[in-house]
């Protein structure tokens, strides 16, 4: 039952009205806590309002362009208009994984192939989990995703309906990766707000892949929140492959880390009209490691914005960020990385780097690394470079018989290499290698 957001009032009002209309039935499950958070979040959303370009964090990304579009709020049940054959091309070749499928943001029991899981582990839809695993959901839901300060997180929290729920119990090593395949397939310009909660307890290890694909040509808008709890000594790898075509995407990823935990995130943006990725990492324990990587390929009028915040609250931690972009045509890239080292967080090593190649005179890159350090015994560095493909390198390769196209492709793949090499799942890396090579 999609609901038209009419244009009569302000954009914020329309969401608030839609919320009131649906909170009684569609949005309200049996989980009282989720319901309570939802109401706090919509109030907070109304106070915050959507950002304009006057807000520092949105200076280079005019999200109002996306928001002005008339979307239908997709609040119905999962649609069944996709077949396993439709999904087949989006499986990772050669990958043996626990497959969980979302269609238009809703968990699809029929398409998912979760298979055998280690004892005590849970992989299911978020909506189901709010009822079947209420204690776990209640302990973690909206604990890390900050809806007080993030308007898109507040909006998602208010409209939280479904998504993925993953729970890895203490000391469990999940051998096979979990592949979350999220497809959008609708003939309407829909707005979707999937909500993921990933809880990885002490000393557990898991690798997650999320691939988001828009199968239809509609201008959809997804506003995703992913909350990750990384318990002490736990390891979590999170790989996101974004291929939204005409659709737009805002992701809000929050990782909360306990002592001695390791969190790795790699985000690959291959298409999408406007993509904004907000990653917020809070290593709230000693000896944590946080790795954030990104690769974005801009063509046409694509706009890709990566915002990261690493908030070093505790001492003896390590964080590393590397974001690389290749921008062609009239595409735009934005990188804003903020590293905060709090006063008591001594012995922090934090590195941040953003490198971009512009392939045309009309592509733009805005890069803003920020370090905010209140401790005195730390090692932090940041750097940003934006340039063109090295003509001498192209000439060198051509003088060995490679065509100009081959030479450029080889150099661009080489440029992307170190981000691609952060993928610790071989079939996924091979797939992206091939896809990216074909793009150049």
């Amino acid at each position, binding site marked *: 039952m999609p609901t038209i957001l009419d244009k009569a009032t302000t954009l914020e009002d329309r969401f608030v009205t839609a919320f009131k209309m649906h909170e009684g039935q569609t949005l309200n499950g049996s989980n009282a806590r989720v319901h309570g958070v939802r109401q706090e979040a919509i109030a907070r959303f109304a106070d915050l309002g959507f950002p304009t370009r006057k807000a520092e964090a949105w200076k280079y990304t005019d999200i109002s362009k996306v928001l002005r579009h008339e979307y239908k709020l997709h609040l119905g049940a999962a649609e069944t208009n996709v077949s396993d054959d439709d999904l087949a091309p989006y499986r990772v070749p050669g990958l043996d994984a626990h497959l969980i499928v979302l269609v238009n943001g809703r968990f699809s029991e029929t398409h998912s192939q979760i298979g055998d899981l280690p004892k005590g582990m849970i992989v299911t839809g978020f909506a189901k989990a709010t009822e079947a695993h209420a204690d776990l959901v209640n302990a973690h839901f909206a604990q890390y995703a900050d809806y007080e300060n993030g308007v898109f997180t507040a909006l998602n929290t208010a409209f939280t309906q479904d998504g993925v729920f993953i729970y890895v119990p203490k000391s469990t090593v999940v051998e096979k990766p979990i592949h979350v395949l999220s497809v959008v397939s609708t003939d309407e310009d829909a707005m979707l707000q999937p909500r993921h909660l990933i809880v990885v307890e002490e000393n557990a290890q898991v690798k997650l892949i999320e691939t988001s694909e828009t199968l239809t040509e509609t201008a959809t808008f997804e506003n995703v929140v992913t909350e990750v709890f990384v318990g002490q000594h736990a390891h979590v790898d999170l790989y996101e492959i974004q291929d939204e075509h005409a659709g737009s995407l805002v992701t809000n990823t929050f990782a909360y880390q306990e002592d001695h935990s390791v969190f790795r995130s790699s985000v690959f943006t291959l298409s999408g009209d406007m993509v904004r990725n907000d990653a917020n990492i809070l290593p709230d324990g000693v000896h944590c490691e946080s790795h954030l990587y990104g690769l974005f390929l801009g063509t046409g009028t694509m706009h890709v914005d990566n915002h990261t915040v690493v908030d070093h609250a505790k001492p003896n931690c390590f964080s590393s960020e590397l974001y690389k972009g290749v921008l062609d045509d009239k595409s735009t890239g934005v990188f804003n990385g903020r590293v905060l080292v709090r006063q008591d967080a001594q012995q922090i090593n934090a590195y941040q780097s953003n490198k971009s190649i512009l392939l045309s005179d009309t592509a733009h890159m805005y890069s803003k690394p920020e370090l905010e350090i209140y401790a005195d015994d730390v090692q932090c560095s940041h750097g940003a470079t934006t340039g063109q493909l*090295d*003509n*001498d*390198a192209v*000439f*060198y*390769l*051509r*003088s*060995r*018989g*490679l*065509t*100009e196209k*081959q*030479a450029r492709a*080889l*150099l661009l*793949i*080489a*440029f992307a*290499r*170190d981000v691609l090499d952060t993928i610790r799942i071989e079939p996924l890396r091979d797939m992206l290698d091939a896809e990216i090579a074909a793009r150049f």
Partner: protein
Amino acid sequence: MALLEIKNLKASVEDMQILKGVDLTVNAGEVHAIMGPNGSGKSTLASVLAGREDYKVDAGSVTYRGDDLLEMEVDERAREGVFLAFQYPVELPGVSMMNFVKQAVNSIREHNGEEPLKAGAMLKLMKEKAEMVNLDPNLKKRSVNEGFSGGEKKRNEIFQLALLEPTLAILDETDSGLDIDALRVVADGVNKLRSEDRAFVVITHYQRLLDYIVPDFVHVMVDGRIVKSGGKELALELEEKGYDWIREETGAVPA
């Protein structure tokens, strides 16, 4: 028909004329040395022959196996058998030697109507040619020229020469930056590649390289022109008397 025929070649870079009328004929099987002081235009000649785009040809012609070389794209020249060993080989971070060599060798094989080499055969070929120039056999995983020493970079150029088997090889100051041991290795590599149907144009500032790669002809370039040509003895004479002697003798304007 000469393999390479350069006639009255004039070329400039950023509106400054560097080559002021070069004439040179190279036949298959010959080794020509081009010597000259710094700034005389030796490297410009190499760059123009390889097709570097910063150089503008103002006049003259270059015929390679009967075709107009200047009309050919850079990569077309390479596939047609023209090879330039760079004075300053470019570092290509992230491009593995294996991948680079594979693409280069196969693009030339394809041009010659041959099947691409299979992985095993490629590795064998690389190993064999690497041994010839004493290059680290583990180089296939390394990025092209990245972190290579000066000597390794130059040996890598000769390694590529050996792999691509060109008809015309131009060596642009391959000896610069090499000590005598490295120079011998490079020269040995080149000598093994000398053959009846392959010609070399060896550009050098010093005569020492020519002790090891013995040329059939020596040309002296001063101020954008070849002002004197002779046999290998000319190199020794230059070494002894210096370039000023040539300037005086030929009336060439100092560069």
